[in-house]
């Protein structure tokens, strides 16, 4: 047992910590903070066998919304704390208008309400849920539009998950986001759904898809802008960004009719 513990602590490497941070998502952009370059540094130090991990996060502007900043910082703290062998964790947000507030709150374990005081009512659960819904809506639009590009005659209102090309990235991405929301993932489940998960009337299908498209454009546009602003603010941070995954191609979109992507 002792030997095992020693082995474990020895394995607390920067790579392991970064992998854990890869599970932390920017809710607005629906992307891991590691992909968009928000992780500024990871250091593992401390006494042998008692590793302390220090993580610094950075955002595209000083005025990124503090509630989203808090979500990412606290999620990062949770994710790194769960890495086997990690003894203590310090996650700090750099260069933000609420850096002092958030970093103090995290260090003292005050939680969201303890940190933000009168500005916090209950929790950030609803905020998180709102953006999980948006992430699903955008994924739904990408999957349907990809299909429409190959076959403009598709009956969108009648589509079920089984009609989507299996193994396609857009399909897999949609299934993952449905699972997050607790929506059914079986072949017979309708693809086009409203925010509450129900299938719209066929007469409403066009509107629901158009609205979903505006969500997708918004999410993709914000991702594009935030990535760019980060590299303006922190020269060299391009090296810490990985391209947005294939299941959500960044602009330019491949939109010529009849070409599958």
């Amino acid at each position, binding site marked *: 047992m002792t030997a095992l513990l020693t082995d474990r602590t020895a394995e607390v490497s920067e790579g392991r910590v970064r992998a854990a941070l890869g599970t932390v998502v920017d809710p607005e952009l629906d992307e891991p903070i590691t992909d968009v370059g928000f992780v500024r540094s990871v250091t593992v130090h401390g006494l042998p066998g008692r590793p302390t991990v220090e993580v610094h996060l950075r955002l595209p502007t000083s005025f990124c919304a503090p509630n989203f900043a808090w979500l990412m910082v606290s999620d990062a703290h949770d994710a790194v704390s769960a890495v086997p062998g990690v003894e203590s964790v310090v996650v700090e947000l750099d260069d933000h208008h609420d850096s002092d507030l958030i970093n103090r709150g995290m260090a003292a374990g005050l939680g969201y309400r303890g940190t933000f005081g*009168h500005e916090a*009512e209950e929790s*950030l659960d609803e905020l998180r849920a709102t953006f999980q819904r948006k992430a699903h809506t955008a994924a739904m639009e990408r999957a349907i539009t990809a299909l429409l590009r190959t076959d*403009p005659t598709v009956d*969108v209102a009648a589509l079920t998950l089984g009609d989507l090309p299996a193994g396609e990235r857009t399909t897999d991405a949609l299934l993952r986001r449905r699972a997050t929301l607790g929506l059914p993932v079986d072949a017979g489940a309708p693809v086009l759904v409203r925010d509450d998960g129900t299938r719209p009337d066929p007469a409403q299908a066009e509107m629901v898809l*158009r609205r979903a498209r*505006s969500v997708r*454009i918004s999410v993709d*546009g914000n991702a594009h802008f935030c990535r760019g602003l980060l590299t303006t603010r922190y020269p060299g941070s391009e090296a810490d960004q990985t391209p947005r995954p294939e299941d959500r191609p960044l602009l330019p979109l491949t939109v*010529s009719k009849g070409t599958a992507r």
Partner: protein
Amino acid sequence: MYSKDGEQYYVVDAHIGLWDARPENQRNIHGKQFIDCFYDYHRNLSPESEVWGYEEYLYQGGERLMRDVFVDGIVDHAIFQPARLGEFYHRGFGQTEEAFALAQAHPDKLTYNHYWDPRDGENGLTELRANAERMQLKGVKLYTADWHGESRGWKLTDPMAYRYFEACRELGIRNIHVHKGPTIRPLDRDAFDVADVDHAASDFTDLEFIVEHCGLPRLEDFCWIATQEPNVHAGLAVAMPFIHTRPRYFAQIMGELVYWLGEDRILFSSDYALWTPKWLVERFVDFQIPEDMTEYAPLTTAVKKKVLGLNAAKLYDLPVPAHLQLPDADETATGPREPAAADLATA
């Protein structure tokens, strides 16, 4: 007036500022953070030839503003939309007296809009009445994420805000420019959400609500409320410069706005001094939705003329020469305006 290929465009820059962010005016670190954020926007989205040095970005003054905004006679009229930011800057960010004096000196070229804040309570209402008379206000700029003592944000639906809207109605201040920001109380919810605009616009149908940055970063929420409220408009501040760095994204923004709002409720803005209007107007007149984006109809010359100036001129009663005026589009009052153009959504 801008002319290109035999077409004339009456141009209104619906959002400019005269700010002072120099160190001596910065009250604390947030004053520096705020202007640095603007400067990064500027550097990130401008063509190389249009990028300014940091020092000159901090403050421009009236003379330079007149040169920058009205260079080559392209812009016919511009409207000040000041932000107070009294917690970040000793004398505020927007320079009220300097901008107002400039507007008085050039009434044909400039309109001064002021701001109010419901957290100023009864005193603020008195001040609004005095300002309306002294400044002959036709519009106001509201920034919901302005800090104010313990508070870092407010909503258009706050009871005191309704008192101010009632005063606006009474004082003939018809144009309400709304700019959402990152903080609001409670922080439990999305501060950028524009749902409060929906309520205010429904309750004050005789006021016009211009949502700046067309709701970005919540374009989707904005489009959804704007399609249902005929008195909600899209201001293109901050969206415009995407025309250079991300033209396909800009095409999608324009495509969405025309689809959900129609062509009569979109207003061009440079957001000076974030950017300068000349290059934006030139690019916009040359701009077209890429052919492969078949989900959007092309932008016609008439649409461009309306966006560049005619729509704002209507809201502010600006004297547009008769031969440049255009009739409103024959469009539905609510709901999507161009459903037929949505080929990829025909279910």
